[in-house]
């Protein structure tokens, strides 16, 4: 259903393109919250959890990071302590060893102990199950001449019928992640195609005009990472994309609201565990 909503929004947005003007609005402040971002996947690499603090809405400084916190992850059998990165660019990042990998169907419990209280709390927890994901059969790139001319990256895969599945699609071009920041990531649930073959659904577009999007060159290797996420993470990403979209249309948007979280004690953000499957193709003209 959320997809149908998107389609309508695009259509009506075209008709009702009103005029805009910049205005001054004063906003109140609010108390600081702990912000957590963490990802555990079934890939073998250093996975990270990032700790920052929230700031006032108009603030232009980067978020203050939290160092010297005790961050551990328990997978149901053992607990690993994450080590803070030494890199000055990556303050606030806590990493697992590089040979760490998440196991499908395990539940991961994150525990955080921060040195100074935020909002009266020092201990925070979150947990996420790591769901499996179907393999990608293949991906294909097709060019269309409408509008400015664009390429569709199409996905072919089977969606398992027995489970409720939620997906993210990340796209890399020659090892550069294009779907960044996270509100560029395509997300979907399987309500429209549960149990069906996903027959070339478009998950990303390249545009034949660099002003409007990413351009595609012959010889580029395009890799798609399909993530099998939990329903909670899907809801988080959906709400996140709603709240960070640039234009809210009163015809279709409900009132703004806080994004859900799976972190305890009044912290915000999300700790997500998910599995990833890949497919690549090289673009030939």
């Amino acid at each position, binding site marked *: 259903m959320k997809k149908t909503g998107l389609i309508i929004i695009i259509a009506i947005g075209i008709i009702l393109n009103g005029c805009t003007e910049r205005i001054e609005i004063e906003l109140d402040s609010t108390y600081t919250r702990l912000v957590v*971002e963490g990802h555990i996947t079934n890939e073998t690499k250093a996975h990270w959890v990032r700790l920052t603090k929230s700031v006032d809405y108009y603030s232009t400084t980067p978020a203050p990071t939290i160092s010297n916190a005790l961050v551990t992850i328990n997978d149901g059998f053992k607990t690993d302590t994450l080590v803070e990165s030494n890199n000055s660019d990556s303050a606030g990042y806590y990493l697992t060893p590089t040979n760490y990998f998440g196991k499908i169907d395990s539940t991961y419990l994150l525990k955080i102990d921060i040195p100074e209280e935020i909002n009266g709390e020092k201990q925070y927890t979150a947990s996420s199950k790591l769901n499996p994901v179907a393999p990608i059969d293949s991906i294909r790139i097709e060019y269309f001449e409408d509008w400015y001319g664009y390429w569709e990256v199409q996905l072919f895969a089977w969606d398992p019928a027995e489970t409720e599945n939620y997906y993210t699609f990340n796209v890399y071009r020659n090892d550069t992640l294009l779907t960044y920041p996270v509100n560029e990531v395509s997300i979907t649930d399987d309500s*429209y195609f549960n149990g069906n073959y*996903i*027959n070339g659904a478009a998950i990303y577009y390249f545009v034949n005009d660099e002003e409007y999007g990413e351009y595609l060159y012959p010889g580029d290797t395009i890799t798609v990472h399909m993530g099998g996420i939990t329903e909670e993470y899907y809801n988080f990403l959906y709400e996140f994309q709603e709240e960070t979209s640039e234009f809210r249309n009163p015809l279709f948007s409900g009132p703004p609201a806080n994004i859900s979280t799976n972190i305890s004690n009044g912290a915000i953000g999300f700790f997500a565990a998910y599995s990833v499957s890949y497919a690549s193709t090289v673009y030939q003209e």
Partner: protein
Amino acid sequence: MRNFSFLTLVVLLFLNLPIIAKAEGEGNLKRHTISGHIRDNSTGEDLIGATVYVKELKIGTTSNVYGFYSISLNSGSYTLAVSYVGYQTIEKTIELNDDITYNVELLLANQEIEGIIVTGEALNVNVTKAEMSTIKMDAKTIKEIPALMGEVDIIKAIQLLPGVQTIAEGSSGFSVRGGSMDQNLIQMDEATVYNASHLMGFFSVFNNDAIADVKLYKGDIPASSGGRLSSLLDVRMKNGNSKKYSVTGGIGTISSRLLVEGPIVKNKASFILSGRRTYYDLFFKLSSDEDYEDVKMYFYDLNGKVNYNINENNRVFISGYFGEDVFGSPDFKMGWANQTITVRWNHLFSKKLFSNFTAVYSKFDYELGMPEGSVYSFEWISNLKDYGGKVDFSYYLNANNAIRFGISSTFHEFVPGTLKPLGSESAFNEITVENNSGLESAIYVSNEQKIGSRIILKYGLRFSHFVNVGKSITYNFENYELQDSTVYGKGEFFSPYYGLEPRIGGVFIINERSSIKASYARTRQYIHLAQNSTAGTPLDIWFPSTPNVEPQIADQYALGYFRNFKENTIEASAEVYYKHIQNAIDFKDYAELLLYKYFEGELRFGEAWAYGIELMAKYDINKFNGWVSYTLSRTERRINTINNNEIYRTTYDKPHDVSIVINYNTSKRVSISAVWLYSTGSAVTFPSGRAEHGGTNFPIFTERNAYRMKDYHRLDLSLTWRSKDKPNKKFATDLNFSIYNVYNRKNPWVINFLTDEDTGETYAEMTYLFGIVPAITFNFKFN
């Protein structure tokens, strides 16, 4: 509370029975009834709410929505004065020895004829009538109000009245005394109109040329009406000129309209047919760009009515409305449509007992789709059908008592929608949200009683009932989590809700120029609108009360002081109201409402309050007429799980609301109108903090609707230039120029926060819809 008021009514009825009995069986003097229809002399149209006043007794009555009146008096000689706003009063002396039928045809105030006495006194009906919180508007007044893009619109016109707020700019949804958009019962000739808007709400479905009368009840809703908490907008369409043929039409900036009416049998049967269509999509067809050539974007309305006076005691009407909005391109199509068909029969059982029987069918549907041939091909169709019948009786017992009673029942069929894949390539599964049906019924009785010369008391009781009808599935939730479901078989009745709705009101007439009125009404609403967006869209779904959704109940109290000045040329009123709603409905954050089986789990319930003061002064002095109104109000809710269970304002809570309407008839041929309106900006939710995640920032909110957008105000002007008015002229034209938002105020429609990519700075940006919009309309009439 319920038992107390029921008891009070029963007691009141019993206390009056001796008085009624005595009046009937009065010894020497026999009672006789004068009754008949009051109509317009040149068209034969019924005049609704015309006054018949017996000068010697200082009592009177008014004609009902079919133009019928009845008054019972002792034998004697009386002078009746029949009057109606905008028409010349007719006085006639009647010797009453027997029941008589006296039909009256009134002349418009600017017409002349000999042999009948006319008086020019303005009326004080607003002071003496036991009715408050209501406003009547006729098509002529509505036409004078400058309109957006020249499209005369009754819904926009009523938003200029005190107590009526817009929901969002352009939207046809309106809020009456703090109620939400779905709490207004909009009826066109007794048929409920579910979606009164075209083109996302910028225009309404009513073709003003075909309208005879509009009455808005903001409170003090009569016992004969129910089903919505906040208002009744009763729109009566013209019956069709029964004396001569007439063609009226207009060509405007956005749409054109045509109306044909005339007698089928002179003075006995007539018809009226009107249509309206927009044509902005024609501009697309002219475009050289291939992509735009096949774009379809239009709306149309079609109204048709036939009425037949079989004889003095029987009259039949058949009316229909068909309207549709279409938006389509080769890749995408969307549309919604309203259809209603009504059959009515007026029957006079006696001169004192008037009855009306109505049968209604109405359907509101919408569809959305992408044509075959791609992985996205789908079609989604949804609709709502009503099959209803009602019987209303008016028993004009005697000069002091007018009793109304009746019964009604409507079968609602809700088809929330099926999404079907189209073609073999489509990746969509078929998704169906199960149908739902409900039977909504009511029975009522009420009396309007004159006590002495100063008091009129209205009291009534309505009993309403709603029951779901299978076959359907109900999902059971615990703490908003889905547990299981219950299946009901075809025709199985389940989950009944019912209750009493007492209605009491009264007027204490201080003198000819002033009065005090008070009223109390309880209303129950069994069907609701799932509208999560701020402005409302045509895709909002109506849903019934079920085991998961209790009916909403409202109690409204109102008190008012009414005072006329300068021989009734200025009608002023001050009304204060308080409304409390139980089982108010709102939606959880990020609620999924469309095409979602379990959407009842997205609903949240609580209470709502609305209260305010409405001040209004209506004037009609020399060449100026119009009104000035000011409303000070508050509307808020407390809903479980929303805003931390604390009270929050609704988006349409606008403490100050001002309207100034001035119509100036400079001469017989030229009139100028100005409308200035002002309201506090809508309540909005703005962020207080931000946090980083995934390479970008997201907002943190603390309180819902704690901030406000900029105040809204604008000035509209219009000028109408009429062709020379010669007697017996066959052809009349007028040219109307209008300017919407004359000083080009940028009223915010929505405010978004954007981040400057280069500086990283976040700033607020407002979107506004209409700057200054001029329009021109050419209107004509053939007689």
